[in-house]
């Protein structure tokens, strides 16, 4: 079943087209990431689902029901905010129980539910404290518990890991993923961190200037970027120009080539080859990063550690499999 459906949705703020003609379909039970640089419209899309924004034009459906005119408090979706937005005057337990309290659920029952939710995010016994007494990571978990206790059909996460340090972040990434699988909930996750999106999501939508540039599984996005922007944003891919493509016998506006697809040496059967001058090499542990100059264009190759690195200044031939060269739509 389709959990969230966007049909040609736009949200304009004056002359700024924050979201511009977006079509999306998020399936039930999916971990869906909205990836893009800041100002690309991903957070506005999330706010459109939550109900904090209304579309300028287009149509939004949540589980088959039209969302237009439905206020946030009547939508069965909950949000984990970027700044967590915990109520500073309430205890942790009252924060978590807030959604149940405003729905009029009895004190004993909501207390039990809130304690269960806190246990689920590994914070049992923290109920009596105030948000100010918790660390960033703990607040993040409370925000998660506060949203999940309402049993939403869709959980919206707005850069929830942005404020955490790297180690905590990786730990939370795993926990979120596990939680999502256990609960079987639909998660929509907004992030500007491509590695986070690729490692956690079932599918990723790449946003740029208010438009969705590509939707696909992390592997599709990574291996077969549709446009130059996606190739650049999702990973440090080489983008070959129209001239370079022509040299390889391709008529395409641009093509992407992953650094790890490049092999040194003359092309074998079914492979394509190019010549370039190595201009820099650096050792990065598992790989050696080699930058080549191919007729004025830079191409980066990731060579497995242990293979010999050619000296800079001497022209070398390198090859790659035909299917590793991915033709893109526009330059």
């Amino acid at each position, binding site marked *: 079943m389709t959990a969230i459906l966007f049909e040609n949705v736009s949200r304009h703020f004056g002359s700024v087209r924050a979201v511009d003609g977006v079509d999306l379909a998020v399936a039930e039970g999916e971990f869906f990431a909205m990836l893009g640089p800041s100002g690309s419209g991903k957070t506005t899309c999330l706010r459109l689902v939550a109900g*904090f924004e209304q579309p300028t034009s287009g149509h939004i459906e949540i589980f088959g029901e039209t969302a237009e005119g439905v206020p946030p408090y009547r939508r069965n979706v909950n949000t984990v905010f970027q700044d967590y*937005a915990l109520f500073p005057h309430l205890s942790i337990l009252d924060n978590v129980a807030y959604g149940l309290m405003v729905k009029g659920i009895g004190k004993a029952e909501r207390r039990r539910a809130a304690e269960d939710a806190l246990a689920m995010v590994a914070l049992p016994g923290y109920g009596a404290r105030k948000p100010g007494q918790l660390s960033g990571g703990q607040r993040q978990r409370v925000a998660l518990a506060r949203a999940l206790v309402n049993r939403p059909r869709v959980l919206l996460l707005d850069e929830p890991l942005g404020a955490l340090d790297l180690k905590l972040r990786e730990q939370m990434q795993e926990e979120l993923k596990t939680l999502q699988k256990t609960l079987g909930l639909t998660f929509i996750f907004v992030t500007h961190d491509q590695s986070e999106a690729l490692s956690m999501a079932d599918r990723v939508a790449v946003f740029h200037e208010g438009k969705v540039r590509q939707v696909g599984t992390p592997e599709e996005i990574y291996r077969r970027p549709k446009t130059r922007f996606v190739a650049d944003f999702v990973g440090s891919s080489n983008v070959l120009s129209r001239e370079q493509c022509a040299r390889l016998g391709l008529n395409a506006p641009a093509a992407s080539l992953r650094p790890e697809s490049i092999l040194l040496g003359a092309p074998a059967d079914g492979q394509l080859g190019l010549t370039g001058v190595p201009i820099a090499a650096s050792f990065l542990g598992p790989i050696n990063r080699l930058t080549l100059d191919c007729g004025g264009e830079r191409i980066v190759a990731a060579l497995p550690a242990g293979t010999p690195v050619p000296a800079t200044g001497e022209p070398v031939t390198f090859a790659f499999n035909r299917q590793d060269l991915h033709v893109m739509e526009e330059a």
Partner: protein
Amino acid sequence: MRSDRLDRAPLPLKISACLGLLFLHLPILLIFLYAFTTEEKSYRFPPPGLTLQWFAVTWNRPDVWAALTLSVKVASLATAIALVLGTLCAAAVSRSAFFGREAVSLLVILPIALPGIITGIALRSAFSMADIPFSFFTIVLGHATFCIVVVYNNAVARFRRLSGSLVEASMDLGADGFQTFRYVILPNIATALLAGGMLAFALSFDEVIVTTFTAGQQSTLPIWMLEELIRPRQRPVTNVVAMVVVLVTLLPILAAYFLTRDGDHIAGAGK
């Protein structure tokens, strides 16, 4: 090095500071002193004797009670109006962007910056043009103009510190507008409103200028005192009342100070 020098103020500075404080506060102490004097017609120093009889005399004077009741009623109602309107206005100015927001903010604060006499004359001519008879309610309206400012200033400072996503979080968790106000906004601005309300009450309680222009036959406590000074009859009664006014206005201001001292200042406390 510098802090060492700053630690010790030179003697002349100390003396002038003390003189300044004496100049400010000695007259107030004298008012307190003459509330206990045995002499009725004029204030001689030192007082010929001390007595508590004026407290009993004051207690039995119906005109004092009438003025006091009127002042308390006016201050309460003006404060109540100011709390509602000032909070709504602060919410509008701090929570949304609209055309002319800065102008609205300035216009709301203006009544406290304008001399009271201007506010008074303006209100008086407006009331007579609209054929509204001067009454209890015209006094309340006059006082509300500057009471709103105090509440507004306190509330707007607190609203700015209140993260906007708290309101969204509350709505997201299923609370409608009223529940969000009741459970999230009100607890977070309550101390600011209490402080603003107390200041508004104190301002209204000792207001003279605007009141003289907007009152009909009624006298609020400060007006009554002014009249008493002109015709001397049981003069120390005025001093007893003055003591009460000082206490009634000082205590809320002190309370407001302690309620809001963590973080934001009491806007408009200087009037």
